[in-house]
């Protein structure tokens, strides 16, 4: 069989794959896939065994290995594009094998559906691998069915391939079984074996693990569209091709001679026939990109936060919609501001509402658990970090992110034996090996980590007083009394800038001026770039000044707190703001008048309350 394609097809392929590569690289960004899916791959002995124990495990194992490339934007794009190319190529071989001739452009449809799936970020199903295996087996079966005349042998081959597909890639049967069954049905004179195979395939699908049935009934409509789309494409495509082939066979006659060369009108029509489907494919890709934009923005925020790329976190947060600022994303933005020494100056440039910290409660959502473990560690609540980290280990199983956190927790606690275990385990994980080995070497050089500034900082912050019934987690406050928690940390280490700024920040958001005034004397122990002005003299973050200026304005008394400096400009701005408020006839008018100059100030937030003032 000759499946060589004309040069136009090669051009189409090149254009399609180049577009794919650009789309994946720039649009989807494989790093976000890696971040959301966290494909875990250990090189330690025994890791493979876990995957060999269940149907579909080998494909999961291979996917975990392949997906390591997604950690890098470029490599990830190349690997994903290669998968699309393989799917397109095998699809063409499949239909060519069935129909005896190439079907133009059809080969791109599954690849496009797969791109839509990749766009979902979180879906860890090894779809492309399963599809490739299913197609390869289907092609093999089609060829065998033409060479073998023995029904029993064919049925045995079908059963063996079905089992192999099921064990190796689970869902591969979805692509293999209907195609193979239809090929058998199309064989005459009897259709019974083919129908039996079809029934067997359906039965296997019904008896397959719940995850297999779940492919078609997922809560996420975007996922369902992809799966049904792929299934429908191959099942209907096979039926149409086989039906067409049967019809051709019945009406076999001499093919009309192709007139040479075609007139220009025909060439234009052929060009349009090529361009329109390609444009259609492009439209689908754009639509899929648009529909998944929300997930992409949230994923980008979480990705940059986990990499501690704080400017990128702020940048990603600008693309979030107001409704996306939940307790977790708010915390991530505020953490980025804190790490950039901007929390006290810029927090009201972003939507603020409720607590600045996420709830400290055991949850089944992995990102939440990772974040609160990290939060506890940063604050110095190291035992709490160990506790939540332990829960996260059960939830995330072999997730290296939690192992890293647990290694850090134990390093801070001085439990280097435990830390070494986590680091040794990580040294077998492809994405963490270099970091873990470096940390182990550091531990060999400096067993107590006396030279590690971050560990020393966290040891200073680490709570020393045991409280078995944490006051911040009383029955009335199951998610924790954050105020008490932060005050405990400040009692432990008065220079704990994170505890101080999040405490004052929480009071600011709650518009609790008396509490701000009561806590402000602690500012004398706080230091850092945010507390040093351009002239090298001590300064006070803007929002803190604004709150204290409001207090001074309302009481008519000067504020005299060590370490606090309210600049004249702040008082002047407050006077202007007050004048606008006084002079505006309505609240709405006042809001409009103050919007351009004051919407990022605490004055504005205090008067108009929580909102998105970007």
């Amino acid at each position, binding site marked *: 069989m000759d499946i060589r394609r004309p040069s136009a097809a090669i051009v189409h392929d090149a254009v399609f794959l180049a577009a794919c590569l650009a789309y994946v690289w720039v649009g989807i960004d494989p790093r976000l896939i890696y971040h959301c899916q966290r494909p875990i791959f250990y090189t*330690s*002995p*025994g890791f493979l065994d876990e995957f060999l*124990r*269940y149907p579909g495990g080998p494909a999961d194992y291979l996917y975990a290995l392949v997906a390591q490339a997604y950690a890098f934007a470029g490599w990830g794009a190349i690997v994903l594009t290669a998968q699309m190319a393989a799917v397109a190529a095998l699809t063409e071989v499949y239909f060519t094998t069935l129909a005896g001739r190439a079907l133009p452009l059809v080969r791109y449809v599954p690849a496009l559906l797969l791109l839509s799936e990749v766009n979902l970020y979180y879906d860890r199903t090894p779809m492309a691998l399963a599809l490739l295996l299913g197609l390869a087996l289907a092609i093999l079966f089609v060829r065998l069915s033409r060479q073998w005349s023995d029904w029993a042998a064919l049925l045995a081959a079908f059963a063996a391939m079905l089992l192999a597909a099921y064990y190796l890639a689970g869902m591969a049967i979805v692509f293999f079984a209907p195609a193979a069954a239809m090929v058998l049905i199309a064989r005459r004179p009897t259709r019974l074996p083919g129908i039996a195979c079809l029934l067997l395939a359906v039965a296997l699908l019904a*008896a397959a693990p719940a995850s297999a049935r779940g492919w078609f009934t997922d809560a996420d409509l975007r996922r369902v569209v992809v799966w049904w789309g792929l299934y429908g494409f191959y099942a209907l495509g096979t039926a149409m091709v086989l039906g067409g082939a049967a019809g051709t066979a019945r009406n076999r006659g001499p093919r009309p001679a192709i007139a040479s060369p075609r007139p220009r009108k025909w060439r234009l029509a052929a060009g349009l026939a090529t361009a329109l489907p390609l444009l259609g494919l492009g439209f689908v890709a754009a639509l899929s990109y648009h529909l998944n934009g929300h997930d992409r923005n949230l994923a980008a925020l979480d990705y940059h936060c986990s990499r501690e790329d704080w400017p990128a976190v702020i940048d990603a947060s600008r693309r979030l919609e107001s409704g996306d600022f939940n307790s977790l994303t708010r915390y991530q933005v505020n953490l980025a501001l804190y790490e950039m020494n901007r929390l006290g100056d810029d927090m009201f440039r972003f939507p603020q509402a409720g607590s600045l910290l996420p709830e400290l409660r*055991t949850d089944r959502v992995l990102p939440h658990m990772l974040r609160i473990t990290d939060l506890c560690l940063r604050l110095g*609540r190291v*035992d*709490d970090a*160990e*506790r939540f980290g*332990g*829960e996260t*280990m*059960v*939830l995330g*199983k072999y997730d290296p992110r939690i*192992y890293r956190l647990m290694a850090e927790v*134990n390093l801070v*606690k001085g*439990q280097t*034996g*435990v830390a*070494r*275990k*986590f680091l*040794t*385990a990580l*040294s*077998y994980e492809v994405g963490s090996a270099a970091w873990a080995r470096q940390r182990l070497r550091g531990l060999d050089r400096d067993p107590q980590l006396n030279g590690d500034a971050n560990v020393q900082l966290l040891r200073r912050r*680490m*709570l*020393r*007083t*045991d*409280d*078995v*019934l*944490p006051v911040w987690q009383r029955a009335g406050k199951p998610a924790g009394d954050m105020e008490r928690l932060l005050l405990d940390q400040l009692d432990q280490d008065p220079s704990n800038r994170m505890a101080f700024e999040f405490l004052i920040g929480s009071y600011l958001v709650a518009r609790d001026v008396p509490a701000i005034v009561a806590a402000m004397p602690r500012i004398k122990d706080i230091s850092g770039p945010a507390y040093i002005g351009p002239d090298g003299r001590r300064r006070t973050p803007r929002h803190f000044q604004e709150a204290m200026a409001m207090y001074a304005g309302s009481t008519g008394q000067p504020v005299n707190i060590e370490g606090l400096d309210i600049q004249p400009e702040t008082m002047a701005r407050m006077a202007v703001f007050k004048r606008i408020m006084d002079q505006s006839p309505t609240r709405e008018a006042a809001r409009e008048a103050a919007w351009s100059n004051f919407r990022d100030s605490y004055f504005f937030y205090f008067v108009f309350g929580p909102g998105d003032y970007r």
Partner: protein
Amino acid sequence: MSRGKRTLVWALLPAAAAAAIWGLRPGAESLSGCTEAHRQAATYPDYSGIVIPPNVAPLNLKVRESGRKFCLRLACQAGPPVEVVSANANIAIPLAQWRRLLQANAGGELRMDIYVEGEGGWTHFDTVRNRIAAEEIDPYVVYRYLPPVYDKWGQMSLRQRDLRSFEERVLFDNQRSRDPEGRSIGGACINCHTFLNHGTDRMLLHFRPGSGSSQIPAMILVRHGRAEKVDTRVAGKGPAAAYIAWHPSGKLLAFSRNSLAQIFHTAGVEVRDVVDRDSDLGLYAVDTGQVYTVPEISRPDRLETFPTWSPDGRYLYFCSAPALADKRNLLLQYDKIQYDLVRIAYDAAAGRWGQVETVVAAARLGKSISLPQISPDGRFLMFCGHDYGSFPIFQPSSDLYMLDLSLVATPGEAAPRRLDEINSPRSDSYHTWSSNGRWVLFSSKREDGLFARLYIAHLEAGGRFDKPFVLPQRDPEFYSRCLMTYNRPELVAEPVTVSDAELARAIDSAAGSAPAAPGEPWQPLK
């Protein structure tokens, strides 16, 4: 090439291959003329100065010395020595040769010589002299394998390890195991597996359902490969049987039901703690399915837990502590509770119970007592002693103690011995006797304080233990990266036969209700 030359080449090829194989065989290294290190080699795990069972798996180890080639030479009085040469520091001893060597030398000495080849040639480290005991250890150990649990138990399995090899079998996995209809048990907690007289034909399991499950906590009773679910609660409420002990006759079970609460520390080495708010002992008649109790073991003013029978079945030993009066602040007083070791006589023929008598008072020992286990010959009673409470695995202070019951003239005056030869500064706890009473396998966190591993120790006739060693693994580096903990080991003489599907079926089934009790009714906890 001429025909003659070709013939010569073909003739020489087998000889060359044979020479290559001969040259690469273990022991082919030229170790003569090596320099002496005058110290023992550092290895992981440490298998020096120990006594091993003659049927234990090979002591694969990693040589923690720098070099480019490593050789381990095992020699005994009888049989040829075993030499293993490796290009990396991980030494894997061939199972068949190891077995032959140990079986031929039971009761004798095992010499281990380590050689490391560096830039200057081979270096020999001092000979490690171990002893092969004459007595075998039971061939299987059944244990829970799980991550360090805080509050969630979504990843837990019950496993069986063949101590004679490295074969490990998952008996039940709370995520993967399915009943015959393919249903999952939804992440239920499985624990406290107990066997009758080191056999596996009759075993018990306690399980607690996962959150959001409609299942009830219950005892799973396995007999002759068939599992059934038994609801041991009072009127379908409260906690189910937790710590369970078979009467040696196999006809009666003593169990505790505990109202446990987990608390977390905000500072200190160990984050977790468990408080037993209330507990009682109950009884289950295996043949009739009756659940009942007697007043002496379910006193309202005492907490009673950890039942265990003497091998002759004449005494039920358990731990008992005064119940704290201040129920509201019970959790705050977690470190004020200490358990005594007590016992009560039992006449199985008449079904009569005696009076509770204190065997070891916590006040006298200065420690809280938990997990008593008596050696099969009835002579030794081993238990955990720790600062407070009843959860030794969360307490670094937990050590193993032993009481020679043959020397106990007056209960309450007994002087148990802290087993310093096998204890460590970290939690040493759950122990299990071998059926011949010469081996103890226990869990210890000595390596790092968080992950428990299984250690094997040999008991000398005089009542002293030899240095314990960690359960060998095929990959000697396994423990250095294993982030799971080994929990509640039980030595058994035969493999477990009940399937995980059968256990899952029983867990998913409706519990059989206990018939009306003829004796003392089973009361709600105080």
